[in-house]
């Protein structure tokens, strides 16, 4: 069912099974029929660990979305609230509980905090006089959700800066209560998004990255315009064109997707057409099947072949949709500007494409993304240039965006150049962040994921594994935030001998989010024959430039 989680070097399905077990145990504590009231934000992440069928097996008969006033009628014994520990949600829950109809049959209330129980929230419930109404009040530690065989995400909006310190302290605190186990990971690399603000701002150019840029991937699902997916059946006459978006799950469980997701989009077409030939050749085989045995053999392969054909049809449609976008003139112009900035061309003056975008009122996110990119590539903008952009934005999109602009400045995405020094070119050259000769079809370097730009985050990981950061100390000093390394010596009994050719496993934790293109770059490194390191990726949030800036935007009305 979730086999794709166990393909990697580290079996992440174990994690999924553990959280499923914990969920079942909690549900069984509330004996009898139940209704779940959902904090809507949680439904996505929960979908990755348990389908409705699991809930149903444990007597969940109704599901509601958490909202104010009275709960919908439901003839169940238990009402369970699944919520994040947030004060505003506590207020809604209290309203639900207090407006419960006393004349109806008594229902038991339970509360499940995801992923942490909160004293603050419980205090609020107490103040509202409903804390005693909950029979079971527990926490459900769904914090790192397995997305794929090598990918975990917390899917939490907030990111935590002090995670590194905390992890070291936690190690000290928990050594007692945990039995010693063989470590699964050889290295842990924590990367704060602040170290590499640039990468998410650039447009991702891998297949998966582009799907995310154009349609947005939410909890591994994407919604696509339905027209391209209309069933091609005769007789329908096209009268019933689907109107609902086509929803597809994207993960390595799908063989074809696993093969193409991390490729540069320009290399996807050839794979798809090759696949098409292979599949139709396989179907042609039926004409060669003469004996009963041969026919039987053919038939036994049919389901797999049909699945492959369906998968191919889907991805051909998606690729067409993407191609419509990437071949448009505006996409080309935007990409040109991005690449100019990233390679260091004209980063210190007002860019006329951006000016035109503002004048034509292109989406503000797009404009902000480009300006931030320019600012980062120039170690901040000249005051005059910055003020010009800001004034243009305020006049065109509205003065309320002064708050958003301020947020971007606080995040360091937008800033005036201080000291008149631009040290980005030094960083770019030393870390080889811009590669002119990119091989998109058969990549030799991580820069293929942005057709030229090598993500700084991934480059740092690559250099750490070989030859080590000592070689780049000067550049590290130019990057924001302190860097440190800690070694945790293993007890002698737990040191294992590495088999010749066996790779190290590094858990790389992106605090503040990671893009699909960065993940692709890390997978590329894992696959390198002489790479020596395989990566398991964890993050607080899967993100792209748009969702990132969206989270920093503030709309006061």
């Amino acid at each position: 069912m979730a086999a794709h989680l166990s393909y990697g070097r580290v079996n992440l399905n174990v994690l999924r099974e553990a959280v499923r077990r914990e969920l079942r145990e909690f549900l069984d504590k509330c004996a009898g029929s139940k209704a779940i009231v959902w904090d809507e934000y949680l439904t996505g992440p929960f979908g990755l660990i348990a389908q409705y069928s699991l809930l149903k097996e444990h007597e969940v008969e109704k599901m509601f979305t958490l909202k104010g006033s009275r709960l919908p009628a439901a003839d169940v014994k238990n009402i369970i609230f699944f919520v994040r520990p947030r004060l505003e949600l506590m207020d809604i829950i209290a309203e639900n509980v207090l407006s419960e109809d006393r004349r109806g049959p008594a229902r038991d209330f339970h509360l499940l905090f995801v992923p942490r129980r909160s004293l603050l929230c419980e205090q609020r419930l107490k103040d509202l006089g409903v804390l005693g109404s909950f029979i079971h009040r527990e926490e459900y530690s769904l914090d790192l959700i397995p997305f794929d065989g090598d990918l975990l995400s917390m899917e939490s909006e907030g990111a935590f800066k002090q995670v590194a310190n905390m992890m070291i302290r936690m190690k000290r605190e928990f050594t007692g209560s945990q039995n010693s186990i063989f470590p699964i990971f050889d290295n842990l690399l924590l990367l704060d998004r602040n170290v590499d603000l640039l990468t998410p701002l650039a447009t991702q150019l891998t297949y998966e990255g582009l799907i995310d840029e154009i349609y947005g991937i939410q909890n591994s699902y994407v919604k696509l315009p339905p027209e391209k997916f209309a069933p091609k059946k005769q007789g329908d006459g096209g009268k019933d064109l689907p109107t609902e978006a086509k929803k597809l799950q994207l993960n390595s469980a799908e063989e074809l997707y696993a093969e193409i997701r991390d490729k540069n989009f320009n290399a996807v077409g050839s794979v798809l057409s090759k696949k098409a030939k292979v599949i139709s050749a396989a179907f042609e085989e039926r004409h060669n099947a003469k004996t009963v045995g041969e026919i039987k053999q053919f038939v036994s392969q049919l389901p797999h072949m049909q699945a492959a054909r369906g998968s191919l049809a889907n991805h051909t449609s998606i690729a067409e949709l993407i191609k419509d976008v990437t071949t448009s003139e505006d996409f080309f112009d935007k990409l040109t500007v991005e690449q100019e900035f990233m390679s260091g061309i004209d980063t210190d003056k007002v860019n006329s494409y951006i000016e035109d975008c503002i004048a034509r009122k292109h989406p503000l996110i797009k404009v902000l993304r480009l300006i931030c990119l320019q600012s980062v590539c120039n170690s901040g903008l000249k005051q005059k240039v910055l003020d010009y952009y800001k004034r243009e934005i305020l006049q065109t999109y509205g003065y309320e965006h002064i708050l958003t602009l301020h947020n971007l400045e606080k995040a360091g995405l937008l800033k005036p150049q201080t000291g008149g020094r631009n040290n980005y070119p030094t960083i770019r050259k030393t870390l080889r962040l811009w590669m002119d000769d990119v091989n998109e079809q058969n990549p030799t370097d991580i820069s293929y994921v942005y057709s030229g730009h090598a993500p700084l985050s991934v480059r740092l990981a690559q250099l750490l594994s070989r030859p080590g950061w000592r070689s780049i100390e000067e550049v590290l000093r130019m990057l924001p935030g302190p860097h440190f390394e800690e070694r945790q010596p293993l007890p002698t009994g737990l040191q294992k001998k590495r088999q010749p050719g066996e790779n190290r496993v590094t858990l790389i934790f992106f605090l503040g989010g990671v893009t699909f293109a960065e993940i692709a770059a890390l997978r590329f490194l894992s696959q390198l024959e002489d790479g020596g390191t395989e990566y398991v990726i964890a993050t607080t949030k899967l993100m792209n430039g748009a969702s990132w800036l969206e989270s920093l935007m503030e709309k006061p009305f």
Partner: protein
Amino acid sequence: MDCYTANWNPLGDSAFYRKYELYSMDWSLKEELRDCLVAAAPYGGPIALLRNPWRKEKAASVRPVLEIYSASGMPLASLLWKSGPVVSLGWSAEEELLCVQEDGVVLVYGLHGDFRRHFSMGNEVLQNRVLDARIFHTEFGSGVAILTGAHRFTLSANVGDLKLRRMPEVPGLQTAPSCWTTLCQDRVAHILLAVGPDLYLLDHAACSAVTPPGLAPGVSSFLQMAVSFTYRHLALFTDTGYIWMGTASLKEKLCEFNCNIRAPPKQMVWCSRPRSKEKAVVVAWERRLMVVGDAPESIQYKQLTIQVLLDRLVLRRLYPLAIQICEYLRLPEVQGVSRILAHWACYKVQQKDVSDEDVARAINQKLGDTPGVSYSDIAARAYGCGRTELAIKLLEYEPRSGEQVPLLLKMKRSKLALSKAIESGDTDLVFTVLLHLKNELNRGDFFMTLRNQPMALSLYRQFCKHQELETLKDLYNQDDNHQELGSFHIRASYAAQERIEGRVTALQTAVDAFYKAKNEFAAKATEDQMRLLRLQRRLEDELGGQFLDLSLHDTVTTLILGGHNKRAEQLARDFRIPDKRLWWLKLTALADLEDWEELEKFSKSKKSPIGYLPFVEICMKQHNKYEAKKYASRVGPEQKVKALLLVGDVAQAADVAIERRNEAELSLVLSHCTGATDGATADKIQRARAQAQKK
């Protein structure tokens, strides 16, 4: 040892008994045992003895003494009883001594006579006094049942989780029942009582009469009843001299025995021989003991688990022995040695004659970093003994800073709690301490405390942003954070203020703040915003329609769309909209209006700062090729090819590209040569290319 059978005496026909002293009790009784309240704990636990003066006619002037002995007779504790008259004593399963007073207050003592706590059995008991009380054991714990002077029963099935239940009234009960006992059936505690010839079973809801099956007739009173330790069996002693034995459910009779004695026995209990399946009832009179057996039953001894054994040793403060057992049994540290050391430490903190420093050091030396030891639990015990300073010292050894916080809060060391909460990195904990502090301190002190804790301050700001906007403002004010104050007032200007004056005032406050923050850009921008707001209000008054909260750009566009070109021009000038953007704006608006005449006039008003390609594009977007062509001719050479292709003039586009000898443009034109008539053009381009290569 000379003869094994020497001290055995015959008992009836087939049994023998012997008497020998197991332990010599180390007590010196002045009164007779019968004048004492005595309670022995189950499983060979301790024995409590309260020399009871209250039973005597005239109360003695001396205070009674409560004494506790081990089962082997070693004195464990002795203390003067200073509270009220005691009706009954009993031990809980945890070896806590429960002393039920006449007023319904139950005092709880430890094995060593240390006072633990007290609780009351309720007002009804207080008013009517305790006539009789029983301490009983169930699978949930130990309970107390009370018979009051009003002949009503009140019970609590588990004194660890005190829930008082007042049992229903027994109809027609005028005097105390002749005997009664507690039963436990289906996990619920009941009371069985005898009134004259009748038996009643009381549960939470009802009182029902019951009859023991097969009881010999003629009974006018039950003198004594006894229930077995497992609540399975019941024995009744009748005034006819019969002992009835059966199941406690009163569904089955096991046997009945006529003992020919009609005097009420002093005591009747169930017992069983070790490793025997037989159960028997022992009945005692003043000078006679009778054993009545014949109740075969499979008895399952509740084994004392190793954990319980260790608990018992710990309770007796036999720490080294307990640790030796753990080590011998190789119990995991967390369950074994750590737990015992923790108990030892909890005992240690009660030694008031040792200084805080010495106690803390001694504990740390023994415990070190032993896994599973919770220093915060030990500290909590120290605080419970009134040793706050010691508690704080012990907390310092607690590695999990999160664990330190609740106790620190309880001890009112909130500021210390705050720094520990911050250390723990648990934001929820920090919030909890902050809210504590906020209630505890006055506002000034609270802010001061925050100021010294940047992380707490930033968390508190987040909290205020969602919960307490006004406090947020005060915080910014205190920190002279004018930039954030400015943003605060900007937000406020949008919040629920319908009237323009209110908004302008808020914005003016923001402007002042921005100036103080030396953010001239923001100040000027906000002044512009105020100007725009006033202007939009005037426009709405004069022209009607909606202008408020449109951006400047959209305001100008709306004016043009409404045909107010003059006003649009004026506004653009007032706000110094850059020429390039103004041209885009007008171009877009006029094309939207499809006012081609005005557009042409506009295009000729001066040389376009954005060139003429946008004109071509926008006309084509509105599907007006005729107008588009007008502008295509005016497009500069750099973009000419693109413009000609847009209007579909492939041939001319080819000419221009050839003339410009631009390879990229040639390819572009070639890619547009798709129509049937484009063949010649394509050839032309190929020839030009070939020629270019020759050169």
